[in-house]
């Protein structure tokens, strides 16, 4: 079970969180004309990365904040966690 540092609550066990997918995906702006390909990339197309991955988690059983977690998908090492609005360095 992973041990995740919530930027708001501190070190908390994985069972308090729910996974939210790739954090690098950006939703297209509202009311903007975009191609099918762009939309498909947003909705469906994801890389299955091995290694460093920036992902979203929500601290559902805690502060309910969505956070960003930089994690190695192969070793589960967590390098850093960020608040939702924090710049990822």
């Amino acid at each position, binding site marked *: *079970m*992973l*041990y995740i540092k919530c930027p708001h609550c501190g070190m908390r*066990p994985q069972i308090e969180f*729910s996974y*939210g997918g790739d954090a690098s995906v950006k*939703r*297209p702006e*509202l*009311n903007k004309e*975009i191609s*099918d390909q762009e*939309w498909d990339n*947003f*909705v*469906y197309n994801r890389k299955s990365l091995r290694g460093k991955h920036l992902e*979203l988690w*929500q601290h*559902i059983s805690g502060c*309910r*904040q*969505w956070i960003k977690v930089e994690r190695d998908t192969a*070793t*589960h090492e*967590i390098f850093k966690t960020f608040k*939702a*609005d924090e710049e990822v360095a």
Partner: protein
Amino acid sequence: MSQDFRLESVGLINRDKKLSFKFNGKKYFGYEGDTLASALLANGVHLVGRSFKYHRPRGFFGAGVDEPYAIVQLYRNNETEPNIKATEQELFEGLEAKSVNCWPSVDFDIGAINNFLKIFLPAGFYYKTFMWPKSFWYRIYEPFIRKAAGLGVASTKHDKERYEHKYEYCDLLIAGSGPSGLSSAYAAAKNGAKVILAEDKPRFGGSLLTSDVNIGNQSGKDWAEGIISELKTMPNVVVKNRSQIFGYYDHNMLVMSEKVSDHLPKTKKYHPNKRLWYIRAKEVLISSGSIERPIVFGNNDTPGVMLSSAAKEYLKVYGVLVGKNPLIFTNNDSGYETAIEFQKHGVQPVILDSRKNPESEIIDEAKSLGINIKYSYVVVAAQGYKKVKSADIASISDDKKQLGKIENIKCDCICVSGFWTPSIHLASQSGNKTKFKEEIDAFVPGTSKQQETTLGAANGVFSLEETLHTSFAKGRELSKKITENDNEVSIPNVVEKKSSQHDKFWCVPLPAGKNYKRFLDFQNDVAVSDIEIAIREGYRSIEHVKRYTTLGMATDQGKTSNLNGLQLVSEIENKVVPAVGHTTFRPPYTPISIGAIVGREVGKHSKPTRKSPMHAWHEKNNAVFVDAGVWLRPRYYKRGNENLFEGSKREAKNVRTNVGVCDVTTLGKIDIKGPDAAELLNRVYTNAWLKLPVGKARYGVMLREDGIVMDDGTTTRISENHYHMTTTTAQAANVLSHLEYYLQLVWPELNVNVVSTTEQWAGAAIAGPKSRDVLQKLFPNLDVSNEGLPFMGYIEGDLFGVKARIFRISFSGELAYEVNVESDYGNFMWQKIMEVGEEFEIQPYGTEALSTLRIEMGHVAGSELDGRTIPYDNALEGLVSKKKDFIGKRSLQRPAFTEDNRQRIVGVVPLDKKTSIPEGSHLVKDAKATLPNPKLGHVSASCWSVEYDNPFSLAILKDGKNMIGEKLFAMSPLKNKVIPVEIVSSHYVDPKGERVRS
């Protein structure tokens, strides 16, 4: 039988407490502090089971967790548990155990015919033999294997024992209470670190309980006792015996199973049977010691052949002689220690040492005691079927290839020592890159991945002095990092006998003309010849050899067999062991009860139960409950002998003719506040929200980004910047997360707050033509006329002193209202509704009537919003704005979503107007078409229409729009039904929606 093999006044057992127990129906006696194994051996019982494949007689091989044979079916307090190791099971008064793997009995075993037919059962025999002929599998092979093989039998009764889970955090977790575990725990504890010390055995001390050493001028055992009692008094230390750390998971989380009650005849009141600890440790010290490995020789599985360390443990801890005429077969000094103990207790052993002329203090001691030692000698084969009677022995050449003349010597046990294998399982599980250590012919931990350190014998260090020094230092160093204290602890002086180098020898060659079975894996019956076959057939990777031969795949995970298997593969392949590599160690280290893993989450406790504030009233009024997610909801209120069908029909009918009341507390409720609340709703819902006036509710549909309907519900504008959203019961949590996702990550510029208020409000839906009369009685001072409170209107009122929210919304399709009060007043509200409603013939209605009412009206619910449908499919496209953008809108342009003959909701009526259509039935054109019959749609929900008194269903049907009036068949192979049906509009009752506006 009396305890013929028990020594007087030797061992750590409590001789004041005699215990009786039964094994295979026969009564024996032992003492408190015995294991089942030591008590049986004290009574001279060696035959405990039959082997898995060949059903060969099997005895005891070890004295602890490494035991491959002595697996029994245990009976305790009218319950039974399979796969218990007799070497780990502590004796209690009245214990009963039986052998497994034998049919019909351990003495006469039909399966043993396999032993004589073993030519048919070589490596890969499962893969090869049972593949052909195919038809034999079910009729002959499988029943035979099931009856003749398999380990114990699980109980089919409900397990009355309780199992607990516990979460714990510590600075240092130490696995094992041998010399290294004790030293590091002590040093760390003195630095104020929070320490957990875990020992899998009942007694602390590990090897110190059996070794002849001196620490700080006292015996190793006394020193261990002193340290443990001091640790127990320290508030920062938790010391646990009977506790096995069996898994090392990510981020330094380890799991430990504590046997709280297994050593007692009966679990004490309020005590669990086992407790599973999830421990998050800053640092882990693995002091799990080492396991002696066998030397492979002919018939080395005969009862009476066992590890020399086990023989020593039986003697020193339990005062039990495993034989009175022991033969010791060793390639190192450890065998001598066992021999010396035998000699000291009046039994004359013979030592066979594969080495030519070893010299050490221990060997000198053995010589001085007059023990008969034969150098360059080996056991070629054990003789005897159910028990060792003698051994064929021979001298062996220096290159270990040639045997001398075979001699036979009488013995009643063979204690074998092939040197020591560090227990690296936990280190390996943690991700440590283990390495092969040439000097000890075994793997040891290498580079750590997590915060773990392996110490002592587990790290391949067999010198006590070195172990104490490194362990004290490591405990001090690691705890200092955490607590910043640095208290010096003086390291006691150690007196131990120096040993000499072991012999790199692990397998005795077969003598000419003999084909004795030489076993590597005792539990899975894998012999040297099986490995040879696997390699001959082309298997190279050790992982493949393992799976093909099942080497190391039994419940003991090859604790005594892995390294010898590797040695064999490397020898045949002419590679060095590290190049062959070892297979991966996975948790659990030793089998763990399923009950312990499940914990308290069984039966009713497998999920939380949520009840509405009106639950007690429902119970009192004969509600029959149904699980709605984790909620308990009344399904119908039973009157007299009514069944579900009759009761729900009555309730639904009463809503259509008079008035009914339904507990809708379970609906998800989200409070939305902020200047941008309307903008959020406008983006989340498919319809327009910017112009909703204060005091009005609106029905809305929300999509996922892929265009699929996520949820529906009404949202009401309470005040300028305050909205009350409702969701379906099932989607409440998901919708909240969904809103939070967009507010926190996608549109943080929106100034809105959302919070779940599901549990803050109790809700009652009052529905039916007379609902306005009931409402007026509840709120005499309010104008609840059609003008004063129109459809989709909202007002607040005073319900006999309680603040209430009143929504004019309807799920039933009738004139209806929903009243919300703070949860604490829910029961009060409900009772008032029933009171004032009496004169209007009000009846409570449950979820079944609720479904009937909504199905008849063609209102969609979870069975239509099933994660596969878009708004059009549910006839909700009128709610999809063409003007504004919203979540998921772009996906609705996908070609499949815009096809002309897209699936759509329809109504379905059986032609006979009698036969109910099972939910899930497929709609097909031709009932007799060849399979697979093309499916046109499926029935999503069914009811008995109370309006028309015939069955009615909703279905999602291909090209549903153009199918009205078509005749199809509803087929349910599951229910074996084929029903001719007609497709009608999904709005079966009141298609114009006049009632809700009346």
